[in-house]
């Protein structure tokens, strides 16, 4: 006993030291062989995580040189066009990082690109989770955390964008101040509090800096930790496939395969981000110049993730109510506060909305293919198209200029399209999903077309169909075959109306709307029949090949089907 517990190697001694203090053997024993399912779409969350790590590292570097101060200085650095220009220390130190610090510009660009990737990857990761139904019980809470993370990411990105105090970021701040001031009752006070008085003041950069490098990243880090712990504890979802059930996880082990893959993937993300940052300029603040509230450049565009908000503000009609000595700026409150509020609330509550509509409150660990949940997929595409219409609206001036169209007509058209395109996308997507379901059913019963034509002895031509591979079949047949709830009777057994049943009726109708059109899976008998059909066709082909070989062997005499030998190939 004592011999087996007394380590002799140096590694063993270290492990022993740690185990006797932290019981690491228990933690390792129960975690190191954890299985993670493998699919390309599961990398999207990883991209977000790695971008965040890159942001923490590059951001820490930038804090070593950046001066978050709005004290005015005269620039006297190496960038000639701005020599002698009055600017804030924040802007001057950004120029210093860009032109004097070796690798400083690279770090700035890595930080900015990584921020764009971070929010982009979070969004696409969220699409993946949505369209596959991975948010369903027991993962609703992680969905909510994800929603909050996206919001925090956007706020964090906007604040970082504001720090260099260049003309473009100052314009963004000006717009933000205008929106804050429009908030009923407290808006003016909040604005004065944030900016330390009137706009622009001399406090906002330092205040945003603290929020940007401490408070919000701290919140993000804590939520990312909770997010990952939940994934770890609840185990990852998986796609339907051979051997995959609701009760298991099939994939590769954490150690060594996932350690190597995920660790390697971090460096791949870092590498690609760095390469892009080395080769593609982003936010060249020296070209915009320092912020001054009486200048703005035409074609001002925010970072991509703020585009939808800017677009909403652009297409909103100019409604404002002046009454009782107060001003209610609907033209700002609606697009910049109410709309994003509704959007994120619906997003965060969606798991419960769907569970309520379908009545499905079971745990789900196997993912839905998007086509197999047509209404959910259509709702998702509808929402994304609404978002994209807002986003396009944020570039209405660029569109007008590029295509030489009237900005007024484009804006009016966008107002209409904002309400026309999403329902159209809903209908299209739903039909498309159902078509794909029908195709799946047909594929699994009739197999792949091979292009091989066989002539049977009695003269009939048939095409050989090859059965689907095991994975393909498991993917298609791994679909939930759900029947929508039946409508409860409007009258009871005695023919008396049941008004209290309206709730159940509505639920049943929603469930029918959600599932009603789904194409059902083939039965076992149909599948077995298809299988024997494939085997039969296979046998026929073997037989025909043998006959052909015999024909070749005897010099084309015995069984020649035609005189010119056109059946040769």
């Amino acid at each position, binding site marked *: 006993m004592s011999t087996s517990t007394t380590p002799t190697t140096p590694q063993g001694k270290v492990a022993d030291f740690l185990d006797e203090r932290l019981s690491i053997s228990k933690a390792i024993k129960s975690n190191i062989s954890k299985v993670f399912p493998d699919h390309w779409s599961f990398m999207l969350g990883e991209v977000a995580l790695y971008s965040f790590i890159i942001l923490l590292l590059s951001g820490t570097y930038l804090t070593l040189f950046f001066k978050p101060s709005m004290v005015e200085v005269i620039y006297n650095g190496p960038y000639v066009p701005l020599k002698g220009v009055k600017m804030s220390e924040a802007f001057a130190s950004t120029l210093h990082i860009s032109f004097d610090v070796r690798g400083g510009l690279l770090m700035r660009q890595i930080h900015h690109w990584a921020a764009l990737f971070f929010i982009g990857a979070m969004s696409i990761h969220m699409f993946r989770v949505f369209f596959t139904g991975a948010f369903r019980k027991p993962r609703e809470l992680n969905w909510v955390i994800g929603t909050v993370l996206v919001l925090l990411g956007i706020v964090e990105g906007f604040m970082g964008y504001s720090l260099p105090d260049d003309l473009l970021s100052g314009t963004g701040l000006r717009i933000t101040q205008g929106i804050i001031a*429009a908030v009923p009752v407290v808006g003016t006070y909040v604005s004065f509090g944030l900016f330390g008085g009137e706009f622009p003041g001399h406090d906002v950069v330092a205040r945003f800096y603290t929020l940007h490098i401490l408070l919000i990243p701290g919140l993000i880090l804590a939520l990312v930790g909770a997010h990952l712990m939940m994934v770890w504890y609840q185990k990852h979802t998986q796609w339907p496939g051979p051997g995959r059930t609701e*009760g298991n*996880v099939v994939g*590769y082990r954490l150690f060594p395969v996932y350690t190597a893959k995920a660790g390697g993937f971090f460096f791949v993300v870092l590498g690609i981000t760095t390469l892009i940052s080395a080769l593609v300029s982003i936010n060249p603040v020296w070209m915009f110049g320092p912020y001054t509230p009486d200048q703005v450049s035409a074609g001002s565009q925010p970072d991509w993730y703020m585009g939808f908000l800017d677009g909403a503000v652009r297409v909103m009609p100019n409604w404002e109510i002046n009454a009782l000595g107060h001003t209610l700026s609907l*033209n700002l409150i609606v697009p910049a506060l109410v709309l994003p509020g509704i959007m994120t609330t619906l997003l965060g509550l969606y798991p419960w909305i769907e569970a309520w509509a379908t009545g499905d409150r079971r745990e789900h660990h196997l993912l839905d293919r998007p086509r197999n949940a047509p209404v959910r997929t259509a709702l998702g595409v509808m929402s994304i198209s609404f978002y994209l219409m807002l986003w396009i609206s944020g570039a209405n001036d660029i569109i007008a200029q590029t295509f030489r169209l009237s900005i007024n007509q484009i804006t009016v058209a966008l107002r209409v399209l904002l309400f026309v395109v999403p329902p159209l996308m809903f209908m299209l997507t739903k039909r498309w999903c159902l078509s794909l379901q029908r195709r799946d059913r047909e594929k699994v019963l009739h197999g792949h077309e091979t292009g091989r034509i066989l002539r049977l002895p009695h003269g009939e031509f048939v095409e050989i169909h090859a059965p*689907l591979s*095991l994975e393909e079949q498991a993917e298609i047949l791994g679909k939930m075959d759900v029947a929508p709830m039946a409508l409860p009777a409007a009258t009871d057994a005695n023919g008396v109306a049941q008004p209290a049943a309206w709730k159940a009726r509505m639920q049943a109708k929603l469930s029918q709307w959600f599932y009603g059109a789904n194409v059902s899976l083939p039965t076992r008998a149909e599948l077995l029949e298809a299988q024997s059909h494939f085997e039969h066709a296979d046998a026929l082909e073997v037989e025909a090949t043998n006959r052909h070989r015999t024909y070749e062997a005897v010099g084309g005499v015995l069984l020649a089907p035609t005189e010119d030998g056109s059946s040769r190939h």
Partner: protein
Amino acid sequence: MAEHSNLPASPDAGGHDEAAHGALDYGTRDERGRFILPLEEHHQRITDVDPRAAKRAERQVAWLFVAGAACFAGAVAAFVGFSSHELIHVPMLGNVSASNFWLGTLIGLGSFFLGAAAIHWARRLMPGDEAVDYRHSLRGDEDSRASAIEQFKRGAAESGFLSRPLVRRTMLGAMALFPLPLVVLLADLGPAPKEKLRHTMWGDKPATRIINQGSGELVRPEHLAVGGLINAIPEGLEKVEEEAGTQNERAKSSIILVRMNPSEIKAQQGQGWDYQGILAYSKICTHVGCPISLYQQRTHALLCPCHQSTFDLSDAGRVVFGPAARHMPQLRIGVDSEGYLVSLGDFAEPVGPSFWERG
């Protein structure tokens, strides 16, 4: 069928070419109607069966690691070798910072190679077979749940939280007031707005001379031809900014001067607020405060570059398009005894974006 059952793979070797599995039974469905097909047999990769291929993969992995290391060493050399001011010409990119280009390219490629090596290693040489874990119920078993409830109830009873309402209510009262001082502390983040948003420095004196914002010179009527536009600020703004250490005043009192044929002026915000066809309007958009300077001479339209609000300066600054709800405030101007353009008092209304107390 039990939901968690998992049909074992049937080892029938004589199947089709296309499907490397035997005849399927389709006999297992979970309670949700899914067919559960058997887990695939061991999938052999070339590196599993051919030692030479495995050796080749090993060398590829090693070369990728070596390439990564070489790039990182190169990056250090680039850091030392290039000053921050040196430019190089790169095809397609033009003249770019040599330090930025080489540091970024080498660190980027190095990281990429390092990552690619690890992934290649995992995919080719580490175990290729899928492993299976089983999920456990997240819901606590009945004993745990009962015990949790029972212990919580015991603690609650011991605390007297329910049986001593006096303690409970006073505690809730104290907790409710706890955030108050913290919120109050935030009040000093900024001064109270008071009337600040309603005044600009144009109103500090009965007549304030107007300065061309670009050239810094005082503006005379003859500086402005019909159809022309000048961005302008009040005289003494620089001094005010110096003292305040902020650009707050500039954010309110920036104006534009335009000149049009007096016959083209349809309306003004006050009778005779122009000077011989020269009109002064706030430059700060009434929507969210962007400074406007896109002016279309022919239509007298002033377009905000931020959200495309459009104002007609020949018609009292009326909103003709876009999300802005209010006209651009006009500033009454004239000339002083020396012939310089001056403002005659302040704007009649707050400039810039709306706010709750504006009315």
